[in-house]
């Protein structure tokens, strides 16, 4: 008997279009599945069809589209109730078991069919023409089939059982839909499990499970080995299958085979009794009927509220809200973590966390409730009554639209509530409601509101709810994909770009205005869609789209036509305004244009890379910053000196390739002519009237300005901000060819037939040994600057502050460095609180001014930083060499960049790291202290000694700074804290190694692999120090610093080049006994694995 029902189910589904829509959807998506799932993450040595990649992709796609499983499984029993044939069915002599079994197996078979779309799609994905054969192993169909059976099938069974049972028991479609969310919540919950094994077993989509199962694999194994089924994957799958079976058994026992729910008949009786007296004499009062605008307004309010309330009455909605609140409480445990230390739960962290995790919930609400609302009348069969009333379809649709947006608001308020709860529980009471409000209502709501327009439009046009839902999801995916492919101009990329990051210092800064303008442009577009949708939506019984199109002309009432025209005009006007700003005032670069430009730059200018050019020896500038209008002006001179052995006839000047920047004037002493041949690259050649002889100098005067004109497409330049300006001297004119403009993506270089580019030159490269950094145009400068900024801000550059005054309602500062420094300085300006102190050297009684410039609210760790400044200066000057400047300043800058960076005597420090860390001295490493110590170490490794721009450069700069900071940490805290810190470095190293595409280099030859020069460097230096003794290592470093000091080092001057790791390791060898010499080879010259 069950077989008959099974067959019936299959036959029914075979005729349904949804079945094929689901299949096709999964199929099409899976073709690009691997690229989609792995987009943005480095795959390292793994190929696109490595078993582990296939397993993860299948697991993730199955997980993401679990919602489809709920649509297939959930409706199976529900359908009988929806079409009111349950009474026919349940009175036939079938029993409950046959009925449920037949239905379950039938729909499960259909589910399997639909999900084989993943299998076939992924297989086909290997053969699409634009794939690069190098990304693949040899094709092996078995891997796909095996993975499908192993990973997808059990997950599907679990999902199928769960959705089937909830559908049968609740008999409510929306409850069924929200099951997908429940599973997603379970998935998120498993992420909070600390025990890896349990996390692996409990992960419903087995993503962490595969990671766990292959944890100990080498990169090569990860590329080729097939996933082992025995072990953790099997436990995971058995666990979820068991849950599925339990769900089925529970469902079987609870499912009531009686038609009428008992409660219902009782209520009816109660109603029947109440019928009584009739009033014959009753007159129906005469009322006025209004059809004007005012009544439309009343109707709009009525509709909005009505539909809003109707969703509020659904328990499924509250299920989503509660899940959303819970997930945040669990998920935001780790906020803004830097090396294992959490930040204070400041509001913007919470808001970002909330936005990230709740997006899925909002999208579910959007996709399904837009369908539910558009179909609301038709589902309860009230549509004909509605359609015969004089209501405007537009007002009705708009009411539904507003109702749904109100629903988003409810979820947002609930999330804000849980965020505040989380902050309170964690003892943080600075709630900053405005950040909550703007985070949700300025960032998420417009996004949702726009996509809701699309969803309503699609649902209005397509006369099939499920197809509509599919199309909405498809639209999402296509739009995301277009964005990734660089089809992202705000005028045609739907919705425009998202709002730039929020910073406590700068708020939304200058992002906000263009964001709002672009959002209103798209919002008007959305309104047009709604108007068109309302003209075409099914009204009455005519469902044919062609007939609806013809009939729509009678629907366009005069007021609606007027509205549409106004909306259309304003849309065009704002669109033109945006175009004027992004494409007329500013130049819009599409991705391919930008790439072509870089290619041409390299092809035409590479010839000048090593031509003899003078070096910068003196910088004397007057800078006027205008933060409120985001402009600046720089005026002054460089002194250039010919350090070559031949005459220089022409000087090559590169202006920064940034449209806002103009080089207004430039001139050279003694006369010159300008060669504008390469003007399109902002690269000019100035032929001097009299050649510059070796050893001679020349003054170069220039005037550069940064002018903000309107706004740009996408998120624009942040170097000059309303509060928190931060840029460095590379924004000013530089000498000669700039390697940084070359394309660096290997693939792209190949496509444009550019030669293979090494990140770093060999240690024998004669040219680069003379450069301390890429394209360096100086070997050290004298520096003087007068800088003006707005009245409330403080402007900071390296040097002693000579004078400070106020003039024309602006603040002016005169800085001058009284000794040579490297040509690397930052210009910083913001509203600051200042913490000041003094440190006096125990060695030479030199006194140094210590200053921390910070944002008022970020006072938490200022004392820790100050302590670090003192400890570091003390340790470094005692063990390495004296500190060279008379001041040391830390300046906070907005979190558009998340790093701290050392310049001579000045350390710009991002507000995202250190300043808001919530450090618990019991359990955390004091990372504010550590990062500060690391940056101060750069005053030695980077400022006192520079490294040649060849392989291993970053070992000298970064690894040594890591070592120095660890030693300060050890001295101030304890060995345990150091070990704890090194644990986090092991993690960083391991992650970096997994992502490595090429070969891991040794430390001595490291290029740009930060997992090597930061993480492995710290670990190896610690080990080296442990074996040799701290004093010995410091002795070596002391000698190294002395001999290779940029300005006074004897070897540096003798060799006329910068230091390399070869030089450094020589000093190491000197202090190492023979018995331990092997260590130097092992730790620094070989690629030895770190034991984890």
């Amino acid at each position, binding site marked *: 008997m069950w077989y008959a029902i099974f067959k019936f189910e299959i036959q029914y589904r075979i005729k349904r279009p949804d079945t094929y829509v689901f299949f096709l959807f999964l199929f099409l998506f899976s073709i690009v599945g691997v690229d989609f799932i792995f987009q943005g993450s480095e795959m390292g040595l793994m190929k696109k069809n490595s078993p582990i990649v296939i397993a993860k992709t299948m697991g993730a796609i199955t997980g993401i589209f679990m919602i489809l499983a709920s649509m297939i499984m959930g409706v199976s029993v529900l359908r009988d109730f929806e079409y009111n044939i349950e009474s026919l069915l349940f009175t036939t002599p079938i029993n409950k078991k046959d009925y449920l079994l037949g239905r379950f197996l039938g729909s499960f078979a259909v589910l399997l069919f639909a999900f084989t779309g993943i299998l076939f799609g992924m297989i086909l994905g290997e053969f699409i023409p634009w794939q690069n054969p190098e990304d693949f192993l040899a094709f092996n169909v078995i891997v796909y089939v095996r993975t499908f059976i192993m990973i997808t099938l059990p997950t599907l069974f679990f999902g199928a059982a769960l959705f089937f049972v909830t559908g049968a028991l609740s008999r409510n479609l929306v409850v069924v839909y929200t099951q997908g969310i429940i599973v997603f919540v379970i998935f998120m919950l498993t992420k909070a499990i600390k025990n890896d094994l349990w996390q692996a077993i409990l992960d419903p989509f087995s993503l962490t499970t595969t990671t766990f199962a292959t944890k100990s694999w080498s990169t090569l194994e990860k590329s080729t080995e097939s996933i082992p089924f025995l072990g953790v994957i099997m436990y995971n799958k058995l666990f979820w299958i068991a849950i599925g079976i339990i769900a089925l058994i529970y469902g079987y026992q609870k499912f009531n085979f009686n038609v009428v729910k008992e409660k219902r008949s009782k209520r009816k009786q109660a109603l029947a009794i109440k019928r009584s007296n009739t009033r014959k004499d009753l007159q129906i009062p005469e009322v006025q009927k209004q059809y004007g605008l005012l009544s439309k307004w009343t109707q709009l309010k009525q509709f909005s509220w009505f539909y809003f309330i109707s969703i509020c009455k659904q328990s499924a909605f509250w299920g989503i809200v509660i899940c959303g609140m819970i997930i945040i409480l669990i998920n935001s445990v780790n906020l803004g973590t830097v090396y294992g230390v959490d930040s204070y739960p400041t509001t913007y962290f919470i808001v970002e966390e909330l936005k990230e995790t709740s997006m899925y919930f909002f999208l579910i609400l959007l996709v399904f409730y837009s369908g539910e609302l558009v179909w609301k009348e038709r589902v309860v069969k009230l549509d*004909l009554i509605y359609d015969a009333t*004089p209501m405007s379809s537009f007002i009705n649709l708009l009411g539904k639209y507003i109702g749904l947006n109100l629903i988003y608001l409810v979820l947002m308020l609930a999330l804000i509530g849980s965020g505040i709860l989380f902050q309170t529980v964690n003892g943080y009471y600075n709630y900053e409601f405005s950040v909550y409000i703007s985070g949700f209502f300025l960032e998420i709501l417009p996004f949702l509101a726009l996509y809701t327009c699309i969803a309503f439009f699609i649902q209005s046009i397509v006369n099939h709810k499920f197809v509509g839902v599919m199309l909405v999801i498809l639209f999402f995916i296509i739009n995301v994909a277009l964005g990734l492919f660089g089809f992202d101009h705000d005028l045609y990329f739907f919705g425009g770009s998202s709002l730039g990051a929020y910073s406590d210092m700068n708020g939304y800064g200058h992002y906000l205005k263009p964001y709002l303008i672009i959002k209103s442009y798209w919002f008007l577009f959305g309104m047009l869609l709604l108007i068109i949708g309302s003209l075409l939506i099914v009204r009455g019984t*005519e469902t044919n789209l062609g007939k609806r199109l013809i009939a729509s002309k009678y*629907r366009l009432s005069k007021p609606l036509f007027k509205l549409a025209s106004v909306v259309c005009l304003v849309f065009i006007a704002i669109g033109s305004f945006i175009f004027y700003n992004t494409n007329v005032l500013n130049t819009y670069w599409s991705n391919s244009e930008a790439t072509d430009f870089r290619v041409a730059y390299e092809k035409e200018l590479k010839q000048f890379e090593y031509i003899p050019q003078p070096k910068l020896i003196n910088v004397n500038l007057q800078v006027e910053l205008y933060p409120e209008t985001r402009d600046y002006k720089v005026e002054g001179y460089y002194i250039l000196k010919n350090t070559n052995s031949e005459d220089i006839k022409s000087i090559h000047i590169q202006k920064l390739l940034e449209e806002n920047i103009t080089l207004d004037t430039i001139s050279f002493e003694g006369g010159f002519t300008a060669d504008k041949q390469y003007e399109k690259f902002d690269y000019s050649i100035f032929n001097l009237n009299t050649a510059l002889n070796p050893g001679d100098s020349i003054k170069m005067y220039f005037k550069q300005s940064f002018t903000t004109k309107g706004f740009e497409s996408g998120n624009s330049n942040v170097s000059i901000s309303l509060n928190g300006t931060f840029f460095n001297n590379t924004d000013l004119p530089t000498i000669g060819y700039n390697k940084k403009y070359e394309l660096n993506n290997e693939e792209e270089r190949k496509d444009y037939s550019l030669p293979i580019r090494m990140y770093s030159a060999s240690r024998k490269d004669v040219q680069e040994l003379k450069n301390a950094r890429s394209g360096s145009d100086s070997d050290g400068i004298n520096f003087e600057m007068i800088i003006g900024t707005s009245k409330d801000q403080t402007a900071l550059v390296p040097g002693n502050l000579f004078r400070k005054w106020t003039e024309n309602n602006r603040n002016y500062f005169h800085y001058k460095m009284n000794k040579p420094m490297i040509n690397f300085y930052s210009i910083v300006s913001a509203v600051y609180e200042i913490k000041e102190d003094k440190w006096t050297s125990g060695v030479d009684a030199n006194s140094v001014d210590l200053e921390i410039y910070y944002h008022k609210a970020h006072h938490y760790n200022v004392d820790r930083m100050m302590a670090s400044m003192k400890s570091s200066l003390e340790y470094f000057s005692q063990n390495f060499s004296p500190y060279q400047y008379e001041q040391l300043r830390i300046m906070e800058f907005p979190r558009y960049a998340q790093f701290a960076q050392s310049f001579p005597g000045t350390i710009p420090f991002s507000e995202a790291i250190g300043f808001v860390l919530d450090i618990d001295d019991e359990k955390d490493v004091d990372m504010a202290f550590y990062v500060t110590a690391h940056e101060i170490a750069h005053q030695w490794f980077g400022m006192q000694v520079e490294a040649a721009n060849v392989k291993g450069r970053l070992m000298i700069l970064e690894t040594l700074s890591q070592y120095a900071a660890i030693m300060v940490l050890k001295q101030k805290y304890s060995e345990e804290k150091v070990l704890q810190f090194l644990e986090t470095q092991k993690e960083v190293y391991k992650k970096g190694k997994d992502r490595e595409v090429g070969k891991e280099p040794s430390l001595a030859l490291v290029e740009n692999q930060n997992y090597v020069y930061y993480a492995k460097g710290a670990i190896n230096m610690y080990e080296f120090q442990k074996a040799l003794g701290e004093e010995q290592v410091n002795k070596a470093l002391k000698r190294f610093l002395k001999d290779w000091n940029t300005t006074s080092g004897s070897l540096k001057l003798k060799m006329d080049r910068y230091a390399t790791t070869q030089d450094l390791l020589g000093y190491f060898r000197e202090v190492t006994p023979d018995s331990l010499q092997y260590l130097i080879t092992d730790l620094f010259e070989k690629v030895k694995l770190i034991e984890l």
Partner: protein
Amino acid sequence: MELIIDNLSKTYSNGVKALQNISLEIPTGMFGLLGPNGAGKSTLMRTIATLQEADNGSITLGGIDVLKQKDELRQVLGYLPQQFGLYPKISAEVLLNHFAVLKGITYKGERKDLVDALLHKTNLYEVRQQHLKGFSGGMKQRFGIAQALINNPKLLIVDEPTAGLDPVERNRFYNVLSELGEHTVVILSTHIVDDVKELCTNMAIINQGKVCLKGNPLQILENLKDKVYKKTIHKQELKTYKQNYKVISEKLFLGKPTIHIVSEVNPGDGFSLTNAALEDVYFSEIFNNANLKFN
């Protein structure tokens, strides 16, 4: 005001000719539209109610071109479809109020009085705060008529409103309808002959998309006066009688078939003259039509 339907035709995409050159003039008052299931009644009603497009022909109500000026018509229209559902978790009062807003009654105070009055009128006042999902078929139908009347319509279309109602509920429903003013065109479609007889001043019979007969029920009955004969027969004889006489109806009476025939003269043969009922008219028209088709 008069509703004029002129030459209205509609063919569905599957080839069914739902309406074929329908022309009717419907004056104010109750108009009965009789016809068997699938005759095209609902299509006609929906077309008048602006819910369906016609292929050709026209419908006008006073100065309103129904097929084009849909909004204007909807402002004076009350419509109760053959089948409809109600939001389960909403009370009658709230939903009726909602419909009142939809229909342009936007002054809050007036609306409240109107809703209360209609709830009294349809005898739903006592249960106005109950959720609609508990409503019986009769209550639901009464709610349906309440919403149809709420904008004081000039044209009221009720599509098979009494199907499935018990006799008490049916009477209650008719009481509400019959009180409607003389200024309203009321079109009542039904396949129950008594409905028309009891309520309507004018009627039409449609079958297979065509108008078979139109007029005043009394006049129509006059035409059949002294022409209808009846006889109780045995089951086996039915076929013979059908061959020999114009049998317009066969009914069971106490378990035996009773046939009605139309004849200009007394056929004898045990037939006795009977008072022509509207039902006979209906059946004879349907019968004629069916015969025409099969011939």
